[in-house]
């Protein structure tokens, strides 16, 4: 281990310790670092900690598990990402981009749906994640197809050919029509199931139609552009700010803003750098700060 690595590791560990202490110290029941130390020491030494039992309960049963989960998930995703990047020789690869998160999520959802025990849920998530990555690693030719697949998963319109457009446009149109026809009923769904049903909406049918339409449109879009994050999250927020929540205005305005935004981003993507920047990277770059600003703003209005 070089001195530099040691320093970085020490710094990272120090940051981790500060983060953990901070995580315990803030929130509804703050746990002071001193108390935390006493509680941990009493566990090791077997002597009473002298700290109030409620604080001890919070550390072991409430905040401790949550902090542990955050550490474990963060470490796992980052480590997995590092492994994938090495394996695929591509520094822009990450578990979510490779479809591993997505595949694993499908498995986990299936497990939860079937009310399986937690071990089986993990097993299913693992199996589906493996299937997703296996399709890439085993089936794809690492020199031709793999780079194309990874680039596509980051989102790009570089490969959009007339034939792609010709197949995607009808699917998008077919998805748009029911959304437009059901525009008023979608408003009522946003009130919750019971109120909507009491006002005469067959909620199950309407919800199925809306989900099927939106998924069809998403699938058609993904099949030509790959995964482009943030647009579906950020643009509707801004459209709602501009025209209010009535879906008969919200949907068209969202569609127009989304189209304009992606076109601008794509123009940036192919003009600003020597190599083409993946769209997913750019939309995240623009979308994240916008989303944070939105979040802060809406939190203020809730208070």
């Amino acid at each position, binding site marked *: 281990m070089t001195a530099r690595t040691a320093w970085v590791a020490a710094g990272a560990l120090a940051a981790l310790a500060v983060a953990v202490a901070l995580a315990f110290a803030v929130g509804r029941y703050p746990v002071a670092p001193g108390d935390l130390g006493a509680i941990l020491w009493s566990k090791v030494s077997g002597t009473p900690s002298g700290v109030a039992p409620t604080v001890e309960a919070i550390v072991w049963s409430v905040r401790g598990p949550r902090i542990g989960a955050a550490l474990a998930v963060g470490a796992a995703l980052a480590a997995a990402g590092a492994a994938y990047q090495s394996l695929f020789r591509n520094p822009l690869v990450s578990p979510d981009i490779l479809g591993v998160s997505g595949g694993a999520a499908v498995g986990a959802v299936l497990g939860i749906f079937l009310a399986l025990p937690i071990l089986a849920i993990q097993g299913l998530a693992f199996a589906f994640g493996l299937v997703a990555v296996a399709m890439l690693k085993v089936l794809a030719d690492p020199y031709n197809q793999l780079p194309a697949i990874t680039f596509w998963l980051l989102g790009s319109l570089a490969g959009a050919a007339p034939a792609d457009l010709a197949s995607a446009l009808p699917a998008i149109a077919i998805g748009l029509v029911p959304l437009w026809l059901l525009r008023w009923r979608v408003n009522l769904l946003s*009130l919750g199931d019971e109120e909507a049903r009491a006002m005469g909406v067959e909620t199950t049918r309407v919800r199925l139609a809306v989900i099927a339409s939106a998924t069809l449109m998403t699938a058609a879009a993904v099949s030509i552009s790959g995964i482009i994050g943030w647009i579906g999250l950020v643009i509707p927020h801004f459209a709602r700010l501009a025209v209010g929540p009535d879906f008969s205005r919200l949907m068209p305005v969202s569609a127009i803003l989304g189209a304009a935004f992606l076109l601008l981003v794509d123009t940036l993507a192919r003009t600003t750098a020597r190599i083409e920047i993946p769209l997913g990277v750019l939309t995240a770059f623009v979308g994240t700060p916008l989303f944070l600003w939105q979040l802060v703003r809406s939190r203020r209005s809730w208070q």
Partner: protein
Amino acid sequence: MIRLEGLSLDFGYPDHPVGRGVTIALAAGEIVCLLGPNGGGKSTLFRTLLGLLPAQGGEVRVGGDPLGSLSRAAVAKRVSYVPQAHAGYFPFTVRDVVLMGRTAHLSPFAAPSRHDAEIADACLARLGLSGLADHVYTRISGGERQLALIARALAQEAPLVVMDEPTASLDFGNQVRVLAEVRALAASGIGVMMATHDPDQAFLCADRVALLHGGRLVADAPPRDAITPATLREVYGVDAAVVDVPLPDGGSRRVCIPAQGR
């Protein structure tokens, strides 16, 4: 005359029954107050009567037809529902919220027409909310929201209305205002079934009082017969005096005065 009837209703959930054998009815033009302790099943009974929760036994009929034989829109044209006002999630205007009451009258793929907007505006005016029509529903007061939901039920143009504790969490003035609107609805021929925590409200406006206790109906009678020191002790476990108080206008009103807490 159209009626909403629950016939020997068992209600609740398959693994958690809430009430058994409840027979209750509401006719157009009358006010029925449903009284009972917290957690006594008032909301569950209402949700069953509205068809939002399947009955575990017995039957609900509206206008003579079993609830299950009607589409949601057909039910909504006969019975409307005023839930407890909540803030909601999206910033719809008050007019949009009231317009949503028109949904049962629209074909599945239509949005409200100018005619529907006129009805909504008339309902807003009837409840004195015209000035709030363009305000954002999530930002008006709790009392105004409750009145807006009553306007929404009016826009639904159903002859029967079920209201779940419409005065809960309202201040004194708004409680009196909401009760006055309930009486005005009944005077215009609409039947109102309303859950409340306050027996005095039943003396103020009810034609009949249904007392729900332990999942059973222990009384269904005019207020003076249903609300007595004996029934208050049985249902709420509280000793109370039920007395007539003279009013400035020369009449009198019956009220309940709890004896405990002195």
